[in-house]
Every structure is written in C-alpha cells, then in structure tokens.
C-alpha cells in the first residue's frame, strides 16, 4: 500500500510523519522499527523525535520532541519558558496550568506532540509590553503569594475565568481556582486578587 494514499492533503500527521523520517535523519533505523502492524492501520511517529509547531503566546515556535516529552518539559527545556512550574508532575497540583486552545490544561499531563498546531498561552504571554496583566497586578497588590511557585497556575486559571465571566461571584472565583493548590495557604488573598482584577478590568473597559 502506498503511504501517500493514506494522507489526504496536508494533514498535520502527514507533516509529522514526513519530518519524523527525514529531518531527524534516522529513516533507515526507524523504518525497520516501523514494520509494526500499526503502520497498516494508521500513521505512526516516533520513537524518534518529530518536529512540531506550537503557537506560543502568539508566536509560531518550531521544535523537535520525542513523542514522550510533555508539553511542560518542551516549554521549559526547549523554549526556556519556565513560568509554568513543574511541581508534582502528575496532574495533582495545578502549578503547570496554562491555556491551550482557550481552555486551561495541565501541561505536565499532556504530550507536547498533542499540542502540535495549538494555541498555547503561558504566564509569559500575559503582559502587554511592560504592562502586567490586571490579574498579575492584583496578585502583587493583594500579596496573593508567598513562595510563588503555584502563582502562575493560579493566574492562568483566574485569567481563563475572567474571560468567560467578567463579574464572578466569590463562589465562582473559588471554584475556578479549585484545581490549583497553594501550600503556603494564601487562598484568601488569591480570591481577593481575582475579585479586584475583575473590578479593575471592568473599569479599564
């Protein structure tokens, strides 16, 4: 069966596959490993690295990752975007929360390859020029952090909330950040900061 027949047009996967063998330069090795039956029934990439493109904070970034690399590790290790924190690394703390295609996700719990082509927003992308995002401003004003490790995750969850709901109640604020843990216990300040940010954003138009 011809490989090309499986690919209709320029699908993302045909792209992924193309670079998997070519750019990395291990076509011979991989093709012998790829004699697996899986190939007959679908497209296969890996275990060697593949090229992916992420739209990170509005910029197209191309990088080469093993399929096993998490989005969090790709951002931190390859793009030096260390704002998203690696704390529990198993989806139990929320410190790596970022916004992927408009929704908050845990970057530690998803593969970078699955974010290929996605819009990824991290804490680094919130500011406009030198101006911090209102949520960041209010976290500072309200002293909503102690050690600060959980803060980027809290802020991303809060930003996602305020986009959907510009006037959240205190209950809605608490619920929106309920997937983020703060071991310093700064929660009341966080809630207040998000509340104040909502006010500030409304005033700011």
């Amino acid at each position, binding site marked *: 069966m011809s490989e090309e027949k499986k690919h209709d047009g320029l699908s993302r996967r045909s792209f992924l596959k193309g670079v998997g063998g070519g750019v990395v330069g291990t076509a011979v090795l991989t093709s012998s*490993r790829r004699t697996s039956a899986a190939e007959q029934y679908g497209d296969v990439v890996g275990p060697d690295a593949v090229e992916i493109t992420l739209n990170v904070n509005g910029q197209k970034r191309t990088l080469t990752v093993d399929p096993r690399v998490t989005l969090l590790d790709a951002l931190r290790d390859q793009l030096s975007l260390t704002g998203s924190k690696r704390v529990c690394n198993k989806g139990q703390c929320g410190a790596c929360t970022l916004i992927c295609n408009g929704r908050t996700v845990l970057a530690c719990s*998803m593969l970078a390859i*699955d974010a290929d082509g996605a819009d990824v927003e991290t804490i680094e992308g919130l500011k406009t020029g030198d101006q911090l995002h209102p949520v960041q401003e209010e976290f500072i004003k309200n002293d909503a952090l102690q050690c600060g490790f959980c803060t980027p995750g809290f802020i991303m969850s809060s930003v996602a909330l305020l986009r959907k709901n510009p006037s959240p109640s205190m209950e809605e604020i608490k619920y929106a950040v*309920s997937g983020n843990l703060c071991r310093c216990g700064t929660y009341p300040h966080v809630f207040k900061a998000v509340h104040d940010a909502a006010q500030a954003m409304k005033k700011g138009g």
Partner: protein
Amino acid sequence: MKPFQYVYPKDIKAVPKILAEAGQTALLYAGGTDALARMKEGVSQPDVVVNLKEISGFSLIRSDKKGLSIGAGTLLADVVESEEAQDYPGLVEAVKAVGTIQLRNMGTIGGNLCQRPRCWYYRSARFDCLRKGGETCFAIYGDNKYHCIIGGNPCFIVHPSDVAPMLIALDATIEILGLKGSRWVKAEEFYVTPQQDPYNETILKSDEVVTSVHIPAQAKSLKSHYVKFRERDSFDFAMVSVAIVASISDNTLSNVRIAYGGVAPKPWRATRAEKALEGTNATEQQILDAATGEFAQAEPLEQNEYKVIMAKNLLKRAIRELRQG
C-alpha cells in the same frame, strides 16, 4: 519514560487491529491524564501508544427519544457544559465531581471509565503488587485507609471513577469495539471483581476499546443525584460516593437504583439496599437499615472501617438531597 511509537489510527475500526497485533505492548491513549502518569511512573511501559483523540466521531453528544449517547472520546468538560446532558442531572453532578477543571478539560468519559486504580502500591513501580502480576497485595498489611471494604480479595483496590457509579444507577450501556465487531454491555457488567480477574478492572479484552456510552431516556418522575465525600473538598478521589436514581411520589421511593463509588474494586451496585428501600418512605431508620444490610458482608481493613459508617450516612444524605432536589 520508555520511548514509544505514537499511532494515529485512520479510523475507529483500525484500533482493534492495532491492539491485536501489538498485544500487551499497546496502550490506548485519549485524554492521557491517567495513562501518562502511569507511563511516567513506569507502571505502564507501552511500545505502542494509540492516540484515540483525533478519531472522527469519537467525541460527540447526541440526545433523542431513546436517551443520551456520548462518544467515548468526549471531554468531561464538554459533557458538563452540553445542553443535552442537563436532562440527566445526576450525570452532570458526577462528571463535575471528577478531578479539577483542568483535568476535565483534558480527560474523556471513556478514559474515566477505563482509568486504572489509584492504589499507591499499584501506582508505584517499587511494589510488585498482585494486580501487576506479583504475589502480594500490599494493602492488606500496609496503609489501607483508602482501600475497599467489600468485594476485595485477593486485591483491595477501589474503583476510582465518579462517572461509573452514576452510569450504573442510570442503567446505562457501554459500547465496545473489538476484532469481532461491536457489543453492548450494561455499565454494571462492564466491571469485574478481583476474584473474577485480579489484573483488570473491566471485561475489556486486549483487542477491545470503549467507543460510546448510552443512557436510556429517564421517565419524568425519575430523579438522579450524585454525592461524593472527599477528604479534601476542592478536588480528590472519593472516599465514598453514592449515585442514586429513584422516583419519589407522596414521599414513597420507587424504581430505586443505587451504586457506590470508593467502597469496592468495582463500582458497587447496592441491590440489597435498593430492595430494602423500594416502596418505602425511606425514613432515616429505613435508610440506615438498608445500608446496614448492604454492608453486612463488608470486611474493612485495619484503617478503613470508617468507610462502612460513611457509606451508611452518605446514603442518608443522598436521599435527603434527592428529595430536596
């Protein structure tokens, strides 16, 4: 983490074929919130990871006179937000009780049903536990606060799903695709005890994949409700949870269906309690008696006897709130 090949099946029918050929070395991967954690820990070491996320038709919610159909690849967040699901309040409550907002934005309903146990001995590569093919269930003499009180032996996990007990209470069916084609099973029959199979939580064969869930349309008189008790209220797995469906007329309960989470290695259909409550006014005493009967066979471990008491009290709360709702 061990390197793997990542496979994008061309359609859902290709999945059983890939699984059959790859055998034990393949892993189904949708939201990945559970699978990836196991791969990092080394508990699962697949050579082939099958990406189900982009298979067309795998994620959809459809409602008609017969009921509600949910594709296995549907995000939990999409179930919570879908208009169609709102006719099944207990389902929405149960799905919303899963994990966190972030996890529900990533995890799928099929993945929730097929997630592996959270037992810390199972999850740690350092313990060659019974469920992983070893000889010992370390929970028996170890830290067993969160383990099962009924239906255990030789392994004492609890099934962690919030969705599964609710599906059982709603009399849902699960669609499974294998090499031989599709089959439908009752949600209740989807799960097995460790006596039946100590290595797997479900009846899924190695070539099979869950493709959808169907909840039959509920009579207007039927109400559904899910109550989950967590040690940490913001997000956590259930210590005990109760899914209940019943009609209440003149204070009398009928068509009662109850399933527990957090008490057994499978979502626990409480048939004894159902029978005891059917046609009664479900007074506090009657509920207590019904739950006591249900858990008469319970064999709590050293640190989890509290779950027996909690299971009884949570049924009271579930019925009280079902009445109010």
